[in-house]
């Protein structure tokens, strides 16, 4: 699940240059570190009307046969296309698909390289007819790349990106395994989605199925601007995907897919999201970096089938942590970037404050299962280390098929905010009170959680709100709730006294009498994971 991210930039001198490069290539998803080998893309007949039913049947037929891993073409050449060389190769935008059609969005293919070695087949679908887009060296400008000599005609593409109308910048990209992502309404790429996740954080190792062929249809189906049809192939399954992409006041990608299992898997991850969380106000200053916070997402939000709203701030744990939140018919979940204050990030090159939140909205009932949250250790911002997905209680068996229907919102704010107050900041540090060192216990930690919105909006400062705080182990003390005067925030704070290294699950929500005022804040405190005072 870890992959190298493109949007990392080095120190300031290079930053300026990198930013220009990023403008051209901001959607580049450099592929996984160790991709399995893959089967070749299927053939479809040039000019034949495209039909999703055909794609489903094709995927189903493929699933009856063993998986054939593809072989990367021209390995010596691709090995030479390292990060800097890759940045120097420019697509000639005159050759974009739908380049000058005001009613269509231009599409530009991605080049292959050292980190994106497997070609995908690209087709354009319009007015019912299909046309394959073939790689040609003259689609790209290699003059600044240092690559000499003619490039082979059969190189292929790594994926594609969808440009803004007029061709300036892109807002949607597919590249590497089954990854795709959108810059969302704030026009800044951040976390990614995948078509499927298989055996994430399981002992046997994760499998990365891949979109091996895309059929791009404009206008899209059901009123979408663009429909991306894709064939998914992996050792354990195949799949036929239709992803309807809409962009207006909101950016949504509706996924309609049918999976065909070649074999049983240990854990199928549906609607997976992949993000990065290094540090924030919760675990600030673990890094030595000058920036106050670095993350693409700051929490997992859950809207359970029973109607409970939960906010779980993310961790960058010292060891892999897997958590499952059991549910039935979830209404949605998402990895969100609730903190939108530039001041909290201070990075005016990669703008963590503008990175999208992604909310997964099931279309239909998903039954029993769990939202899984996997958090990996990290010490940089260039690797994704957070995964969230839905996994059904009953894992699909060999030869089974499975239909998926859900909508991804690439948003600034969660599309269905809770009517209750939301947790908007989580801080933690040594417990006790400033100035009372003698009374401080090393085993005590202070948690400070700010809530805002909903029923809190109408409240003036008062002293009878309570923090319903509980811990899976340890003792909670000094809990109290106050309005942060001059702001719309209410602050719950408490000390947790706990010893030992085992994780502690904390819960807290605000109450007034027996009335619940806020969503439920859930946090996994990992004793010893935060440094102590020098």
């Amino acid at each position, binding site marked *: 699940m870890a992959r190298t991210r493109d949007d*990392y*930039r*080095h*120190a*300031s*001198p*290079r*930053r*300026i240059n990198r930013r220009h490069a990023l403008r051209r290539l901001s959607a580049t998803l450099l592929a996984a570190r160790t991709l399995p080998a893959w089967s070749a893309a299927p053939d479809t007949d040039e000019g034949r009307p495209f039909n999703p039913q055909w794609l489903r049947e094709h995927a189903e037929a493929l699933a009856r046969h063993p998986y054939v891993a593809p072989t990367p073409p021209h390995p010596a050449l691709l090995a030479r296309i390292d990060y800097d060389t890759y940045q120097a190769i420019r697509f000639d935008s005159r050759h974009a698909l739908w380049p000058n059609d005001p009613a269509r969005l231009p599409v530009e293919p991605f080049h292959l390289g050292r980190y994106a070695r497997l070609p995908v087949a690209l087709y354009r679908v319009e007015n019912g007819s299909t046309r394959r887009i073939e790689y040609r060296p003259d689609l790209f400008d290699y003059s600044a790349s240092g690559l000499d000599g003619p490039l082979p005609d059969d190189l292929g593409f790594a994926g594609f990106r969808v440009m803004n109308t007029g061709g300036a910048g892109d807002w949607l990209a597919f590249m590497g395994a089954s990854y795709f992502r959108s810059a969302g309404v704030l026009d800044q790429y951040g976390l990614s989605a995948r078509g499927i996740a298989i055996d994430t954080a399981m002992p046997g190792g994760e499998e990365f199925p891949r979109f091996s062929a895309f059929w791009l249809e404009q206008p899209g189906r059901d009123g979408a601007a663009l429909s991306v049809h894709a064939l998914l192939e992996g050792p354990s399954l195949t799949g036929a995907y239709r992803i309807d992409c809409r962009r207006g006041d909101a950016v949504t990608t509706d996924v309609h897919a049918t999976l065909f299992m070649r074999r049983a898997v240990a854990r199928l991850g549906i609607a997976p999201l992949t993000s990065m969380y290094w540090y924030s*106000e919760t675990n*600030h*200053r*673990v*890094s*030595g*970096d*000058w*920036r*106050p916070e670095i993350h693409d997402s700051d929490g997992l939000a859950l809207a359970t089938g029973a109607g409970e709203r939960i906010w779980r701030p993310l961790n960058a744990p010292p060891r892999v942590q897997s958590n499952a939140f059991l549910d039935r018919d979830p209404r949605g979940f998402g990895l969100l970037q609730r903190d939108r*204050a*530039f*001041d*909290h990030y*201070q990075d*005016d090159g990669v703008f963590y404050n503008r990175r999208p939140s992604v909310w997964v909205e099931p279309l239909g009932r998903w039954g029993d299962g769990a939202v899984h949250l996997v958090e990996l250790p990290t010490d940089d911002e260039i690797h994704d280390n957070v995964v969230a997905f839905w996994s059904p209680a009953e894992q699909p068996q060999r030869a089974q098929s499975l239909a998926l229907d859900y909508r991804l919102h690439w948003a600034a704010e969660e599309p269905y905010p809770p009517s209750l107050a939301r947790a908007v900041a989580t*801080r*933690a*540090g*040594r417990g006790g*009170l*400033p*100035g009372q*060192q003698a009374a401080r216990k090393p085993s005590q930690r*202070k*948690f*400070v959680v700010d809530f805002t919105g909903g029923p809190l909006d109408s409240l003036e400062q008062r002293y009878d709100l309570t923090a319903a705080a509980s811990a899976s182990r340890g003792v909670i003390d000094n809990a109290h709730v*106050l309005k*942060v*005067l*001059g*702001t719309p925030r209410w*602050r719950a704070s408490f000390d947790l006294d706990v010893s030992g290294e085992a994780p502690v699950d904390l819960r807290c929500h605000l109450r007034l009498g027996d009335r619940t005022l806020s969503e439920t804040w859930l946090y996994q405190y990992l004793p010893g994971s*935060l*440094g*102590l*005072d*020098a």
Partner: protein
Amino acid sequence: MRESRRLRARSQWCAPLAILALLCAPPPLSATDLLGGEAESLARAGFGFADVVRRAEELAADAWRPDDTPLPDALADLEYAAYQQIRFRPEHTLWRDGRLPFRIQLFPRGFLFTERVDVYLIDDEGVHAVPFSHELFDYGALEMAEPLPAGTGFAGFKLFYPLADADRFDEFAVFLGASYFRAVARGQHYGLSARGLAIDTALETPEEFPRYRAFWIRRPTPDDTTITVLALLDGPRVAGAYRFVLRPGATTVIDVEARIILREQVGKLGIAPLTSMFHHGENTSRHVDDYRPEAHDSDGLVIENGNGERIWHPLRNPQRLMISEFGVNDAHGFGLLQRDRRFENYQDLELDYERRPSAWVELLDTWGKGRIELVEIPTPNETNDNIVAFWKPATAWQAGSAHTVRYRIHFAPDPEASLGGARVVATRLGTTPGVAQDEADGRRHFVIDFAAADDGAGALDNPPQAVCTSSSGALEAVTVRPHRHLAGWRLEFDLHPDEDTPSNLRCFLRRGAGDVLSETWAYTWTPG
């Protein structure tokens, strides 16, 4: 420095922690005035600063004698919590008849403040000692076997004025402990302190803390907006007379005139000293296990030199004692400022660091050549004062010499608002992004945000040139960019330090050779 740091503890505790707020808030009013005609009259009409100067000269002519007023057993060895049990009874507040714009309450002796301070009031009839009486205080849970004797005396006093509402008296200044005093402007909470004099601060020899042994407070008229306090300073090697004219308001201004007489030569004489606290801030790159992003009373030292140059030195909580000196000539002033006024950056609901005053010391008259010294002391917590700044003469003042200095301290949210040029509003540093630790070779990445002066706002998109120097090591990749979230610019560079050699860094912004746009940012990076 031990004394000053301990004093700091008191100031912290008197900060508005919810439960302690009562102890520091102006109390309700009732009953009779303390003076009530009983006051002892010294019948010396026309008593003034010259009289205090004369007393200082008399003191200086003799060898120093420590105060020998015994501390009653009941007040000896009081810990802070016990000391806090003793509260001035508000009904005895001086001038609480409601006609005068100022009121006074007194501090008991005890805790760190064991020495007796005489307090007098001056009015048209003469000078009146404020008599001590056991009944002036409520002793709370303390067991007082017998009343405190009449000669016990006080430790200091605090002043009240209707800072915000005409009918509510707010505390705005305190004189308590050695030569410490501090003040707030409207809407602020106590933070840093001033002192009358600093002697041998951060030398090998112990610091000396001269103390005010007597105060004379002039009774104001009902229309007065200022109050005058005279003070007699005494210490082993100095004596002095001080006049303070305090004007509380949106900025609380204290005009200070001091006549300082040296009994003996001192190692280091600090004039107009300020004392503050810096525990951690945005320039703290080591991990601090605290939920609050920053905790400090001040975030930088500012100096306005006589030639117009302005220096900004962000404060640090260093690993080792740091002393920085800035040569000045006819300096206009210096100050310890709290430029960062955003709650978001402190997150402390009780200590209100964003509301603590900045103090700007405006040097009146012409002070000639001297140095501004900044002392930064490592502190493990925020209850210690660990920052000291003062002016010191270029040539040491000799034993037996007497000197008059006049300066004006502005306690305010932004006492430098009228100063021109771009200001540094944030200093951040850390590892160099994108460089692996094993390749970094000690490099530090600095990010300095300048807010443009109002008159420079039109040219934000055209970044000025940065002039950066380092006394050692190499500066790499110096860039200046427009700062979209600030009307100003962001300066970044990497410092590649020499092994073990501190780097004195300076940066300012300019356009062309003669057009300096900003103050000068000054900082010292010490490897390791």
